């Protein structure tokens, strides 16, 4: 009786030890394998998580130029030919606010100074003509531009 209980006990202990080893092997194998895969993808330049074509930096450099013509604080208008519903439109608006902070962007508001981001020169020209705006600095599209109202022609 005692012998069979002790044998069942040692069997349980062996089974537990085996499951513990399996658990450790599973976790270590998974973590090392997945981690190595991540590193290999990055080293080979195939990792989606480090893929960056320098877009943010290019936009940032462009805003560095624009910022020289900006007042230190205040509100600015923001115009784009991409809507906020589009990924690119939302991204550009987000980046614009990030880089012009501490000024505040007002989407679609026609203020004295505005930031514009347009996909092409044609698109920008069309917009400028419709709003009587001129480019103060920045660009060329698709990089952002600083827009100002064109001086009204004096009445003869």
């Amino acid at each position, binding site marked *: 009786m005692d012998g069979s209980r002790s044998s069942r006990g040692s069997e349980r202990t062996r089974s537990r030890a085996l499951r*513990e080893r399996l658990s450790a092997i599973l976790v270590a194998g998974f973590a090392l394998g997945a981690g190595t895969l991540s590193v290999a993808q990055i080293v080979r330049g195939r990792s989606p998580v480090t893929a960056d074509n320098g877009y943010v930096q290019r936009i940032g450099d462009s805003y560095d130029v624009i910022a020289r013509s900006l007042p230190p604080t205040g509100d600015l208008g923001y115009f784009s030919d991409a809507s906020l519903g589009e990924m690119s439109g939302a991204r550009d608006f987000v980046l614009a606010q990030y880089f012009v902070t*501490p000024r505040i962007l007002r989407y679609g508001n026609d203020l004295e100074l505005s930031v514009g981001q347009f996909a092409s020169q044609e698109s920008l020209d069309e917009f400028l003509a419709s709003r009587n705006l001129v480019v103060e600095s920045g660009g060329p599209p698709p990089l952002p531009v600083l827009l100002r109202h064109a001086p009204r022609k004096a009445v003869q």
Partner: protein
Amino acid sequence: MSFAAGLHLAGRVGATIALLTPPYATALLLLQAARRRADLRLSNGLLITAALALGLGLSAIGFVLWLALPGSDPLHLALVETVALLLAFWLRSGTGAAGAPVFEPMPGGRRPWLALAVGAVVIEASFVFAAVAEARPHGDWDAWAMWNERARFFALDPGHWLDAFRVDVFFHPDYPFLLPAAVARLWTYGAAVRRLEPIVVAALFAAATAGMLFFGLRDRRGRAPAMLAALLLLGGTSRVYGLDSFAHLAATQMADVPIGCYFLASLVLLSGAATERRNAAHLALAGFCLSLAAWTKNEGAAFATIVVLGFALGSRLDRSARGVRETLWLAAGAAPGAAAWLVYKNTLVPSVDLFRGSTAEIVARLAIGDRHAVVAGVLGDVVLKYGAGAYLVAIAAVGLLGIGHRPSWRADWLPLAAVVGLIGVEYLILVMSPFDPDWHARSSIPRLLSQLWPSALFALFLVARVPGGSPEPAFADGSACVANRPRMPSLAVAPEFRDDRAP
């Protein structure tokens, strides 16, 4: 990178970390004072890593107090921090060494091959962090849209810091701002907005999280479960656009790792508190961490509510005679931060549009079966994909180990209940939300799972049977603590307490 450039970078990183020394030292001294005066029983490893998380929180609180003061002189900020540091020093030195409880780490085998594997994943995770930080020095979407954008408001124009909440609702001005304040503080001291500071803050939050997970589990369950959890946290790859890899997510400078850090800190402290007789300091500190979580991201408020309610319920389940008093200590720790959070939400910022519509409309959305099906489907899909199956591997590993004998609801089961509870609350919010449930669930659930990942690992390995050991013993009072115990001759060397013996 040339040697000189590397040296220059290392110098700048060192200088940035040095700027964090005052709040870190304040947190460390306060924890040491609590350890001496109020029997806060933390191992040195847990003390050092918890102080890192608390120090970052204190740095943000000090900075916001400075912002609220008239004038914008960084010298005043240094004064605020010096006063806090001196106060902490006085609290610590005034208590003396007599009567200080001694933490007794668990004895047990070292498992060198597991330790080697942990070393390897630490190196891998560091590499991934550095690679992402180099490729995306401004961080990722949320970092530009909210966290670093707000930090720029605070640092570049501290006199008009409230302008940060006047931005378009597109930038979620209602989100809390612990992370931006921590970053802006470094920019203010450095007198420049550079890319390095948010990266350093992100790295420190990640290090604090990994450290607390390891030491929190080591102190409660021994070294082997701690190493398994650390392996799963730091090793891994991404299947959900980088959100499901801890190292990658940390480097994106978003608030998910910091809030996960405070979730974990509160659970580690709570779990330890429930095994102690004199646990007021533990509980108050856990409550404070809950308030820091709420100040990091909105999910923190829901988590804090769940944890406090869960603790109160657990006190009844554990039939604790001191349940009400202990719950009050927990709530008292969270109260100052919670009060400030409520004032902020109700006065400074626009209300969230998550609960748009009448009560009848919200209830009607809850009754739509399709919305439940969509949200549940996305939840299942993300759990399966997360980290290429990391959640499943963690559950399978715990399944192989088996569930240990865990008699204390608050000490053992509360962390798991809090993790599952927050997922449940998020599920209901997504079903009730006025937005398209598929879009909303796909954009929210990966975030939530990544915030909960460190806590989920802690919770799972806390209830698992301890590798290489017998079921955990209980103290005479029925608590199941195997570590964090005072040095008592009858317990310190008893072999049945060794939960980490070689099989």
